[in-house]
């Protein structure tokens, strides 16, 4: 079982207090809304993708520290990335949280590693993946998505 400080690490708390990339990008090419009905978390994500590269990405939303920090770190990391790399990162992030005994690639995940402690909190995993659901939805052209869906 993780300690409290493993879950609410400085990184998480700092991103929660001062979330990066809050707002809506100008002339978004992709937008989506993710909803975590059990917790009431919401994430509105907007991206501007050009030539396969994420030029800009921002989010709005309400929710717990975990959901907001996850969104903040995500936007920070994928901004400027190729869509392909962002998808690879998403896959690695999901495996870290959802796959039993998985050893995540810490180098790739960067600050996202701070969310590893959430893995053992079954009820909170949804909070951490909400932003990533939104990313997935936006890139695949869906407008809204819920953490209740597969």
């Amino acid at each position, binding site marked *: 079982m993780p300690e409290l400080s493993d879950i609410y690490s400085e990184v998480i708390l700092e991103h929660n207090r001062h979330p990066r990339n809050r707002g809506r990008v100008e002339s978004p090419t992709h937008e989506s809304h993710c*909803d975590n*009905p*059990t917790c009431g978390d919401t994430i509105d994500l907007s991206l501007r993708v050009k030539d396969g590269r994420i030029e800009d990405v921002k989010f709005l939303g309400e929710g717990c520290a975990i959901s907001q920090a996850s969104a903040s770190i995500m936007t920070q990391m994928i901004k400027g990335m190729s869509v392909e790399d962002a998808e690879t990162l998403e896959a690695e992030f999901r495996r870290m949280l959802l796959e039993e005994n998985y050893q995540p690639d810490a180098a790739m995940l960067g600050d996202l590693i701070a969310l590893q402690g959430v893995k053992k*909190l*079954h*009820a*909170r995993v949804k909070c951490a993946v909400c932003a990533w659901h939104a990313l997935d939805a936006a890139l695949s052209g869906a407008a809204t998505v*819920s953490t*209740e*869906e597969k």
Partner: protein
Amino acid sequence: MIRQNNQHAIERDFRLVVDDCPVLQRFVHGKRLVYLDNAAMTQMPRPVMEAMQAFYTRFNANVHRGIHRLSEEATDAYEDARGKVARFLGAPQPESVIFTRNATESLNLVAYSWARENLQGGDEILLSVMEHHSNLVPWQQMADEAGAKLVYVGLTSHGMLDMDELAQKLTSRVKLVAITHMSNVLGAIVPVAEIVNLAHAVGAIVAVDGAQSAAHLPVNVAAMGADFFACSGYKMLGPTGIGVLYGRMELLEAMRPFNYGGSMIAHVELEKSTWAEVPQKFEGGTPNIGGAIGMAAAADYLARLGMQRVQAHDQKLLAYAFPRLQEIPGLTIYGPPPEQRGGIIAFTLKDIHPHDIATILDKEGVASRAGHHCAEPLHHYLGIPASARVSFYIYNREHDIDALVSALLVARKVFGA
């Protein structure tokens, strides 16, 4: 030689079941209890009791909504139970298994959420004359509401479902076939996979009443192709208050909910709501968590014995019982020969009313049942007001049948026959 050993091992496994079930150690009216009322309710083995006990003593908490340790454990156990029952029934995914109170509610769920929305005037519902009331009265109601028509298929002279009649009546007007997998009176096993093929060919949906078959036969809902399959925990070693509806995901996803309230919603506003995903959509309110855990433990218990072997055990007892019962003067057995049935035998005894038989059997320690067994139309069809019924399960043995035969002879003697 290996075969021989296996046979021994099997015999031993089944013998141990008796020790697992405290009720079977009982004496009634000074006699060892001979429990032959298994079609009504089976006895619970200790591992099932212990699984429920573990919930109530260690992680008793509500599911789905809680951010604390107990609630996480309860949620895991509840969803784990769904997975186990899904595997037991051969359901392609856990989500296609909805927990209900009993088979009756499972069938009513299909009636309210599927039939009410999909049946129209002039449509037909095909069912058999041997249906249990729970797979008959809901369809009467829905037919009544929709202006649809009930079409009944009768039995062959051997007491089996008349497949020729069924094929003939299964026209494109039929929108729903509601059929038992195993009769709770005749024991007759129905070739549901074949019926599903015929029904799907004319575009009809098939709801299978598996209340008896889930306990007595190897069941694989995917292989059978059933659109819906209903069963109950307490008929297969589990507790009361828990049943299952399996449904094909496409159907479940398209259906409207049944019980509205907590846990089955995505969002609620003052004037409107949206629904959670299947299966939560159909599980309004706090579920029977303890019951689901018990039913899953029962499914595990049966899976360990092996449902092929459970069926073989039924066959062995039927083969032993049939000639012995048929030797009793005035005794008539209803339904098909032993090979075509599960471990249920309904019969009458000349000049002795079934209720008097049951009372005398009870005095001799033999628990049986008498009446129409929730299949009144079948009894009208057979031309008898009631029947006596004995039903076997995995803990019964040949000496139980010997006790039954002796008790029936006592009944004859009491009545001076």
